[in-house]
């Protein structure tokens, strides 16, 4: 039974997810469900930071609570809490299913980051992504939203199957699905194929180029509120899962490293250049997500502990700003022009966004800078000079489109009929939480990196 106690955060979320479905019995209805979800998620985050669970390996080692897992758990819980708080503050429409689905997805994400066995990984990936299909198509009356959901669903299923196909080869070659007994040293070319197939699936989940093409369309079809969740939370878990998998199969390191490096380079180039011309915030952030996956993969491609830690930490530097930006897009409208004159209407929010956007560019002292600094360190040490140069040049390019948002907020004329209504205090608090985490994590970068620490692959 000892094993179960460390899964208290997961249990809390499952309870919350089930309760949220009975919103009519809760005080406040749908809004109450969102409140309940937010509070339980925050409680789970509190439990998750307790040191008592360090390096536990319950269930015979199928999952592990090492540094990266604990880090990812706290990050996804905080992201989820911010999202549900915002939903509660917004308080409109039927959100009980959305809250429930998001909580199930959070459980999947946590398990994904903890899994050190292929079947566990697969099941948790499914648990994390199946709710996302529904969330994307959450607005039933909207045909674009449904189209986006179908696209997302088909692509996701396809890439999951490719990943599963790869897993089956890994199992066939090493006779085990557990990371600590996977051995592909004598597998030769087939081992490489197996790893590649599995990686392709993971690339698609991280929206790394060239497996990203579904993301801009899927995001642009659904509401920014959904995109805020779907484009950030699973990526944090995906980064940890990928790092864990790559370090487990490092036997085929040379080829894996090359493939990872190529995907990283292509993602950075394609993501940043494509984002330059977007006028829809959802598409812009989708391409920016491709670019950030590229940066993150530098750390994975470095195939070193330094690189793995840097990649895991970077997922956070990407996720919080992106979540906050999409939440504001949900309030103001999904087009870039909807941000026009935001500094006039809501100066504090505009300044918060400036901070977040600068963090995404990699300007100190926010976490984005330390994230990039560590990725560059890892890449440089591994001799990936080309990637490092691409990364820094593309950071400048990325400033081009992030600053367009700043320009819209500060220097563009506000439309005569601004769509945004006055956000509630709670929604503003959720946004402020993302901003504060982005800033404080940067100032306390030492403890963030220290907390990730070592890996048990």
């Amino acid at each position, binding site marked *: 039974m000892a094993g179960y106690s460390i899964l208290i955060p997961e249990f809390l979320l499952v309870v919350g997810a089930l309760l949220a479905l009975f919103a009519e019995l809760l005080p406040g209805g749908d809004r109450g469900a969102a409140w309940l979800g937010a509070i339980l998620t925050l409680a789970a985050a509190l439990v998750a930071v307790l040191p008592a669970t360090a390096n536990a390996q319950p269930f015979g080692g199928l999952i592990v609570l090492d540094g990266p897992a604990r880090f990812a758990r706290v990050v996804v819980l905080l992201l989820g809490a911010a999202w549900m708080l915002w939903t509660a503050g917004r308080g409109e429409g039927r959100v009980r299913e959305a809250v429930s689905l998001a909580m199930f997805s959070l459980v999947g994400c946590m398990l994904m980051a903890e899994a050190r066995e292929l079947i566990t990984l697969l099941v948790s990936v499914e648990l994390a992504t199946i709710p996302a299909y529904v969330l994307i198509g959450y607005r039933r009356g909207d045909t674009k939203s449904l189209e986006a959901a179908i696209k997302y669903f088909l692509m996701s299923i396809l890439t999951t199957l490719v990943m599963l196909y790869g897993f089956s080869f890994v199992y066939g070659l090493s006779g085990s699905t557990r990371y600590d007994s996977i051995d592909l040293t004598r597998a030769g070319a087939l081992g490489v194929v197996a790893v590649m197939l599995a990686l392709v699936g993971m690339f698609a989940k991280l929206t790394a180029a060239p497996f990203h093409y579904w993301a801009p369309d899927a995001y642009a079809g659904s509401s920014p509120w959904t995109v805020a969740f779907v484009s950030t939370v699973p990526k944090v878990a995906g980064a940890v899962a990928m790092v864990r998998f790559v370090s487990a199969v490092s036997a085929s390191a040379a080829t894996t490293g090359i493939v990872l490096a190529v995907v990283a380079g292509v993602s950075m180039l394609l993501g940043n250049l494509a984002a330059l011309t977007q006028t829809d915030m959802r598409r812009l952030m989708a391409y920016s997500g491709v670019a950030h996956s590229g940066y993150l993969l530098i750390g994975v491609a470095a195939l070193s502990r330094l690189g793995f830690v840097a990649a895991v930490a970077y997922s956070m530097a990407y996720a919080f700003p992106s979540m906050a930006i999409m939440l504001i897009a949900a309030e103001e409208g999904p087009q870039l022009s909807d941000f026009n004159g935001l500094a006039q209407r809501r100066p504090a929010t505009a300044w918060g966004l400036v901070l977040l956007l600068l963090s995404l560019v990699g300007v100190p002292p926010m976490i984005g800078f330390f994230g990039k*600094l*560590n990725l*560059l360190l890892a890449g440089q040490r591994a001799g990936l000079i080309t990637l490092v140069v691409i990364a820094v040049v593309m950071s400048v390019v990325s400033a081009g489109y992030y*600053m367009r948002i700043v320009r819209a907020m500060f220097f563009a004329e506000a439309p005569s009929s601004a769509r945004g209504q006055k956000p509630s205090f709670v929604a503003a608090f959720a946004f402020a939480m993302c901003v504060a985490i982005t800033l404080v994590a940067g100032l306390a970068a030492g403890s963030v990196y220290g907390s990730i620490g070592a890996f048990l692959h």
Partner: protein
Amino acid sequence: MLTLIVFLPLVGAAVCALLPKNNLQWPRWVAAAFSAVDLALVVWLALHFVPGGGRQFAESFAWVPSAQINYSMSVDGLSLPLLFLSALLTFLAVIASWKIDKKPAFYFSMMLLLQVGMNGVFLAMDFVLFYVFWELVLVPMYFLIAQWGGPRREYAAMKFFLYTLFGSVFMLVGIVTLFLNTGTFDMVVLTTRWSTLLPAGLQWWLFLLFFLGFAVKVPIWPLHTWLPDAHVEAPTAASALLAGVLLKMGVYGFLRVSLPMLPNAFHQWQWFLAVLAMISIVYGAAVAFAQTDIKKLVAYSSVSHMGFAMLGIASGTAIGIGGAMAVSFSHGLIAGMLFLMVGQVYDRAHTREISQLSGLAGQMPMIAGLLAFASIASMGLPGLSGFIGEFMSLLGAWQSPDLAHWIVFAASMGVLLGAAYMLWMMQRVVLGQPSYIIADCPDASLREVLVVAPLVVMIVAIGLDWDLLLRYADPFARLLAKTLGA
């Protein structure tokens, strides 16, 4: 103490930002108070600083221990004059902006935030901290240009931001590479211990990376194209700070990082630097000749003058390096003053076209006199501060065994050109019949005179007594020249 000097304006910026949006009075008084106190602290520091005593007032604690990143600051003969320049010009810029009525709270908080970055750059002794401040400067300057600038302000602000970001990300790669090969971000340790240990091939590459970061800032031809746009579009006070302090960050970088940490690479690059410096001097002066906009003329003259600083650096001699530091300091005073005067003219005439202005002396003798004074100082007339630096830079470059004499000869043509375009400008603007445009314009107010008065005093004082500046600069220059083996 240093921490207080750096972060006091941050408190001021926060206070300004929280003041009511459309209040005219409060923000400017708050900004003036904070920048005045900061200036007083810097003066106190200068009085307690022992010239030639190396690094002083050091502060240090671990910031990100796992990556050996420290929060460490100290002040030496190189940083002190520039720190003073930053504090003085910020204070004067605040006073010069007294009449800002568009979002004053926002404006003054940006001004103070800019000062945090500028002060920090000159004091940080850890590469990561240095980079933090280096980047911090971009943000307020972007807003100052883009919000209060001229008609093409958004374009100019974006160009400024992207150009300098482009330079600094390569500097970041340089910092990362340096760290991986030495295991430290500490700029003092890197200077004293590692400068001779790094292999020459690696040094060459590192020099290139840092060169890109610093050369954009100085700016050196052909990386200067952001400067005319940014200077012309920026509001008066921001132009003065841009020319007065931000450009010096580039020179500072060369003297703090490139030369002392990568001395071997410096000798490989020396020639190249000297040629670029020469081109900057002559090109800047020649293009300044062709300008019809007086602010643009001053902007290009900055390119030319900063070329002298680069020539002094490229000489690698104690005199040349001292000259580079003197040029930096004195150009900060003179260019700051020129931009302030041009701003005062523009406030009245609402044009900066040289052809439309004439006869300032008849209509507003005070402004005309101060403008003429600044122009003469800019020419490098002996007895004023501009002379020392250019003279020492040229002398150092001439003495340097590594530089061909024709480079120095060509560069000295820049002095002649500089005198020529300034005189020509004065002839057209100051003298002649008062143009109808300035017919009813009042002369400078007391505030406007007081803003530039400290600059006038310092330009004259340093011009007459070189030692005021050189006693800080000289020990550093000698030490650096010894490292370089010249």
